[in-house]
C-alpha cells in the first residue's frame, strides 16, 4: 500500500521532538480553549493564529490542527461541568452530560466523552487517510472552471443545507466576497474599493482581521450579553473505578460510536454542515435507535458518547476537502486554509505533490494529536474543574488583549486593529439578528480563488461563458450547486402542498 508508506514517512516528520512538543502544547491549549464556555475551536484558531509566527510554517499548521483537535475534546468539559456548551459543537453534549453531572456522575460523563472523542477521531483519521489521495488525484484534473464551480457549490450548500435564512445567507456570502475584492485587482493590477481613500485598504482585507473581529471581539460581546449570572461548576472526581466504568460504558456503545464516527466524517466534509449538525444528528440517531429512548435527556451515557464521537469525526472530515481540494469544510478549516496560504503552502492537489512531506506530516500528526488529546484530557480533568472557576472577566480581558495585539502583529498596521473592532461590533449585531457568520468568513477566504478561477476560465475560453457547463466535471458541480440553491424553494413548495392537502 502506497498510502501506508507515505504515512510512515509522515510519522518521520510528526515524531520529530519539535513536532511532538508542538502537538502536546497545541492539544493542551485547545483543550482549555474548548473547555471555556463560549470559546470553541474557531475562536481558538482565530485568536492564536497570529502567535504561531514563532515556529516554522509547517509546524504552525500542525500546531493549529492540534489545537482544533484539542478544542473538540474540550468542548465537552464545560457542557458537562457547567451545563453551558463550550462551543456550538458541544451543544448536544449538554443534553445528557448535564443531567449526569447533576446525578454526581460528572467524572463518568467526562471519561466517556473523552473516550468517545478518541474513537471518533481515530476512525475519521483512518477514513481521512484513505480518502485524501483519491480526492487529490481527482482534483488534479480540475481547471479554473472546475475550481470556480466547486467554490460555487460550497456556497450553495450554505443556502440549501445551512439551516439559516436563505436571504440572510446570500447577503452574507456576497458581503464576504465583495470584501475579498478590496485592494488590488489581481488581473489588471488596478486598485479598487479603496474606502475613504484610506491607504490601509490597498493591501486588501485579511481573513484574519475578519476572523479575529468576529470570533474574538464579537464572541466576547455576545457571551457578555448572554451571561448575566455566573454559572456554577459541578465538582467532578475521577477515580480508577470511574475510569473503568467510563471505558466499559463506552465499550457498550460501540454501535453508536461507529455510526457517529462515519456519519460525522461525511457530514463534516460539507462546508455548510460540520460538527454542530453532525453531533445533533448523531444524538438523534442514537436516541431513535435506542431500546430505551425515554432515558435520553435524563443522563444516558450514550447521549454523551454519540455527539462527542460525531463532532470529533466531523472536525477531521472538514480537513479533508480543505487539504485536498482547497475548499474548507468548516469556518475553522477556512482559517487554517487562510493561514496556509499566508505561509505559502496553498492547499489543494498540488500540495500533495510539491509538499508531500508536509502533507503527510500533518496527516500523521492527527494520529498523534488524537492520542495526546485523550491522554491529556483524562489527566487534566481536575485542572479543568479548577480552571472553570476562573472569573469570566479574566478570560474576557485576556481574549480581548490577544485580539488587539494579535491583530496588529501579522502586518503591523493599526488600520487592521481598527477594522477588527468594527468587524467585531458589526459581527455581533449581525449574529444577534440571525445572520450566519460562517459563510461570511468562508467567502472572504475563498473570494480570491473564486474570482481568479472565474476570470481565468473565461480568458482561457476567449470570453465564452459556456465553458462552465460544457466541461463535464464543472457542469456536474454547477448542476449540484443549482440543486442546493433551489432546495429552500422546493422545501417551501413541498410544505405548502402538504399544508393545503392535510393527509
Amino acid at each position, binding site marked *: 500500500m502506497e498510502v501506508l508508506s507515505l504515512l510512515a514517512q509522515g510519522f518521520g516528520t510528526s515524531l520529530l521532538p519539535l513536532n511532538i512538543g508542538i502537538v502536546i502544547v497545541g492539544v493542551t491549549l485547545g483543550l482549555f480553549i474548548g473547555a471555556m464556555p463560549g470559546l470553541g475551536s474557531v475562536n481558538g484558531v482565530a485568536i492564536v493564529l497570529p502567535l504561531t509566527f514563532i515556529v516554522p510554517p509547517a509546524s504552525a499548521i500542525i500546531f493549529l490542527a492540534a489545537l482544533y483537535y484539542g478544542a473538540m475534546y474540550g468542548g465537552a468539559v464545560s457542557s458537562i461541568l457547567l451545563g453551558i456548551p463550550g462551543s456550538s459543537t458541544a451543544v448536544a453534549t449538554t443534553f445528557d452530560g448535564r443531567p449526569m453531572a447533576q446525578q454526581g456522575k460528572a467524572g463518568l460523563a467526562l471519561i466517556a466523552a473523552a473516550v468517545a472523542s478518541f474513537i471518533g477521531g481515530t476512525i475519521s483519521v483512518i477514513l481521512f487517510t484513505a480518502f485524501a489521495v483519491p480526492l487529490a488525484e481527482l482534483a488534479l484534473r480540475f481547471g479554473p472552471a472546475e475550481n470556480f464551480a466547486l467554490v460555487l457549490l460550497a456556497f450553495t450548500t450554505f443556502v440549501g443545507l445551512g439551516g439559516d435564512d436563505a436571504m440572510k445567507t446570500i447577503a452574507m456570502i456576497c458581503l464576504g466576497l465583495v470584501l475579498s475584492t478590496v485592494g488590488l485587482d489581481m488581473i489588471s493590477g*488596478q486598485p479598487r474599493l*479603496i474606502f475613504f481613500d484610506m491607504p490601509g485598504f490597498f493591501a486588501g482585507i485579511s481573513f484574519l482581521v475578519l476572523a479575529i473581529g468576529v470570533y474574538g471581539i464579537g464572541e466576547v*460581546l455576545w457571551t457578555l450579553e448572554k451571561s448575566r449570572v455566573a454559572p456554577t461548576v459541578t465538582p467532578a472526581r475521577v477515580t480508577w473505578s470511574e475510569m473503568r466504568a467510563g471505558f466499559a460504558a463506552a465499550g457498550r456503545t460501540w454501535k453508536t460510536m461507529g455510526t457517529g464516527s462515519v456519519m460525522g466524517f461525511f457530514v463534516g466534509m460539507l462546508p455548510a454542515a460540520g460538527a454542530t449538525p453532525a453531533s445533533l444528528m448523531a444524538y438523534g440517531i442514537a436516541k431513535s435507535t435506542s431500546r430505551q429512548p425515554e432515558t435520553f435527556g435524563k443522563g444516558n451515557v450514550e447521549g454523551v458518547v454519540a455527539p462527542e464521537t460525531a463532532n470529533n469525526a466531523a472536525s477531521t472530515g472538514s480537513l479533508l476537502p480543505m487539504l485536498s481540494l482547497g475548499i474548507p469544510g468548516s469556518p475553522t478549516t477556512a482559517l487554517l486554509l487562510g493561514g496556509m496560504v499566508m505561509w505559502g503552502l496553498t492547499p489543494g492537489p498540488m500540495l500533495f505533490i510539491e509538499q508531500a512531506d508536509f502533507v503527510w506530516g500533518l496527516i500523521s500528526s492527527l494520529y498523534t494529536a488524537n492520542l495526546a488529546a485523550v491522554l491529556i484530557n483524562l489527566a487534566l480533568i481536575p485542572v479543568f474543574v479548577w480552571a472553570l472557576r476562573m472569573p469570566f472577566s479574566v478570560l474576557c480581558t485576556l481574549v480581548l488583549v490577544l485580539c488587539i495585539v494579535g491583530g496588529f502583529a501579522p502586518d503591523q498596521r493599526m488600520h487592521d486593529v481598527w477594522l477588527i473592532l468594527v468587524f467585531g461590533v458589526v459581527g455581533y449585531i449581525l449574529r444577534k439578528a440571525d445572520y450566519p457568520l460562517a459563510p461570511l468568513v468562508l467567502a472572504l477566504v475563498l473570494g480570491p480563488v473564486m474570482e481568479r478561477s472565474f476570470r481565468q476560465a*473565461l480568458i482561457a475560453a476567449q470570453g465564452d461563458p459556456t465553458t462552465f457547463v460544457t466541461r463535464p466535471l464543472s457542469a456536474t458541480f454547477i448542476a449540484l450547486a443549482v440543486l442546493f440553491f433551489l432546495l429552500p424553494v422546493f422545501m417551501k413548495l413541498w410544505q405548502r402542498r402538504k399544508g393545503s392537502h392535510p393527509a
Partner: protein
Amino acid sequence: MLKALLKAESLIALGLMGLSVYFMWHAIERPIGWDGARGPGGGAFPFWLSLIMLGASTAILIRAVRTELRVPDLKPFFEPGMIGPVAAVTLALTITIALMSWLGTYVAIPLFMLWYLRVFGRNSWKVTIPLVLGTPVVLFFFFEVALLILLPKGITEPLFFPLYAMFF
C-alpha cells in the same frame, strides 16, 4: 409603517442595503461590463455581487416590515439591561486602540486591563495586579524579543531605548 421600519431587523437590512450601494458606487470606478474576449472587468465581481446583496437585503427588509405589520414582535433586540455592559466594553476597546497609537501599547493595554478587571469585572486586587503587570511583560518578550514585532509605542518610544539596547 415607520415603526416597523425602525425595528432592529429592518434597520440592519437597511444598513446592508446602504452598504451594498456604497460598494457598487466604488466598484464602478473599474469596468464592470464584459470586456470582449477577456471576460469581466475588474469592477464586475464586486459590482454584481453587491447588486445581489442589495436584492437579498431588500427582500429581508420587505419581509421584516410585512411580518411586523401583521404580528408585531415585542421581544427586545438586546437582553434587557445588558446593552450597557456591551456598550461599555466597546467604548473601552475604542479608547484603548486610540491610546495605543498615542501613548503606546504598554500604557493602553494595562489601563484597559485595570479597568476591565477591577472596575468592570469587580475582581479583587489580588487577581487584578498580577495580571495587569504580568501581561505587558509577557507581550514584550513574546512579540518584541521572540518575534521581532515592534508593538506601537507612540510618545513612550524613547523609554524603550534602553530595553532595545539590552535585547537587540
